[in-house]
């Protein structure tokens, strides 16, 4: 290994490009989000002036923001419960290696690895009122006048948007599968010898051992809702009204359409804070990283 001056020289040289990349597109922007949120900074008044907490006070009484906030929290709650349960169920089923389990695992991954913009377009067409597969199928079942405009009817928009992500839980499946494969086989053998059915083994032995992985899954699933943008932007655009508005979309509209930069960054700060609070409380709740044994 290198020593002395040469050593320090190469350490600096090899770290520098990544550090520059990190500060340019992560560190500095993060600092800017926090600092500018305490200023007044708009396209119409480009000269920044200190504003204290006024942006945050304004958020409290902004009804669009409150809807976006509420929707985001609802989606976090749905993802961390229903979505995680679906992924866990798929993982528990595949862990017993039934015929074709690898095919199922690969297929389930595919909607997740294609562009979410393309996936949004696919869903938009599948749920199209006229020629969409879903409505055509329902008409085939005998409801010939069925003509629900899934994405653009205020009765179904929230449900349809939710559906587009809640049922696709391949990352959760992979996380849980990886954890199941690390469980000591002798524990499961012992349960079998004692006469436990495979259902009982799953419920009383495997699930409790998966606490750490489920905790991480809840973190991954919940925080993904703080990044969700494309699907809503390309389908409902937050509508009808503000039915499907979420925080990232509201931030985007405030920054790029309304051009109120400091206000948008205040929204950004709340997104970061929700994320941090969520991660810390889930890690506490599931005691992630602690062992039972």
């Amino acid at each position, binding site marked *: 290994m*290198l020593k002395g001056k040469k050593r320090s020289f190469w350490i600096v040289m090899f770290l520098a490009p990544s550090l520059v990349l990190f500060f340019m597109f992560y560190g500095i*922007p993060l600092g800017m989000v926090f600092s500018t949120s305490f200023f007044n900074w708009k396209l119409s008044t480009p000269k920044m002036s200190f504003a204290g907490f006024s942006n945050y006070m304004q958020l409290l009484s902004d009804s669009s923001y409150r809807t976006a906030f509420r929707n985001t929290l609802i989606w976090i709650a749905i993802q961390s419960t229903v979505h995680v349960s679906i992924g866990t*169920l798929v993982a528990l089923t595949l862990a017993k290696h039934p015929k074709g389990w690898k095919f199922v695992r690969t297929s389930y*991954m*595919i909607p997740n690895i294609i*562009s979410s*913009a*393309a996936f949004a377009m696919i869903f938009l067409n599948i749920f199209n009122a*006229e020629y969409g597969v879903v409505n055509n199928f329902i008409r085939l079942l005998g409801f010939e006048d069925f003509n629900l405009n899934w994405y653009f009817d205020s009765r179904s928009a929230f449900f349809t948007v939710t559906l587009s992500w809640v049922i696709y839980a391949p990352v959760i499946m992979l996380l849980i599968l990886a954890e199941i494969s690390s469980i000591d086989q002798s524990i499961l053998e012992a349960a079998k010898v004692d006469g436990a059915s495979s259902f009982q083994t799953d419920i009383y032995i495997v699930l409790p051992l998966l606490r750490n992985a489920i905790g991480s899954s809840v973190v991954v699933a919940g925080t993904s809702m703080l990044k969700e943008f494309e699907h809503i932007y390309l389908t409902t655009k937050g509508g009808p009204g503000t039915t499907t508005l979420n925080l990232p979309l509201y931030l985007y509209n405030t*920054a790029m359409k309304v051009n109120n930069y400091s206000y948008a960054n205040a929204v950004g700060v709340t997104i970061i804070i929700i994320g941090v609070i969520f991660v810390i409380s889930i890690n506490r709740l599931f005691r992630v990283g602690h062992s039972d044994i």
Partner: protein
Amino acid sequence: MVSYSSRRNLFKAYVTWFLKYLFLLVIVIISLFPLIWVAMSSFKTNNEILSNALALPSGISFEGYKNAFKIIGDLTFEAFGYRITMQKFGMFFLNSLYISLGSIVVNVLFVSMSSYIIARYDFKLKNVIVTMFSMSLLIPATSMIHSIYILVNRIGLNDTRTGLILVYSALQLPMTLFIMRSYFLGIPTSLEEAAYIDGAGFLTTFFKIIMPIAKPGLATAAVLQFLTSWNEFLFALTLTTKESVRTLPLSLNYFLSLFSFNYTSLFAAITMMILPSIVAYTLLQEQVVSSLTAGSVKG
């Protein structure tokens, strides 16, 4: 009594078996059917799509694919002093490819260099740097779109492919760091010791000895970077306005208005867009799967 209970057990086993496969079948259908339907419809005519959405195409027609290239006009691509004028869709495709490959080079080269240092040497601030890089996984990049937009503008990279290349490389930085660091940790130091004794310099050792051994790790990092760059939408939308530098996912935005009555071409465009991601994923499936799980747990 015994036979009764064993028959009941047998029945229960059948029901469980049936439910298990039914559940897996539903999972496969919801995953693949939407994509298959779009790919199938791209070979139909517009009328066929509107009149009977569930039917198979009456014949294989490539009209949609031809139209996807024709329908939105021409653009000129400029890079390294070359100029190519071509149809817009082809251009978006080329931009996506250029940006994805560019970000693979930048991200994988830069981050494997720093991962190597982090894996091999102890130095001041090492823990600070590692924690900083990992923390960035927790901060949703969506919260910073405006600040990144301002910064990219300041350094004159707005409306350039280079700007997107750098932003995408930064987005994947923590993931590549995890993959490469654990890969380098698995390579015995004796190899480097031997190289130094033979008089090889630091750079020669890294590029000629370590990097070739780390190829599987590099490939995994490259595929994940490809998926990120090829699929990214939000930053492409905010950091570019000129059509000549825009990427494929954004083209869907145009198609939404332009293709409103040409579903065949829209479906052809979607199919061409998702195919590279599926190919890249299936090529290196096992590695992608294992590093995705490792990355999420560490994040």
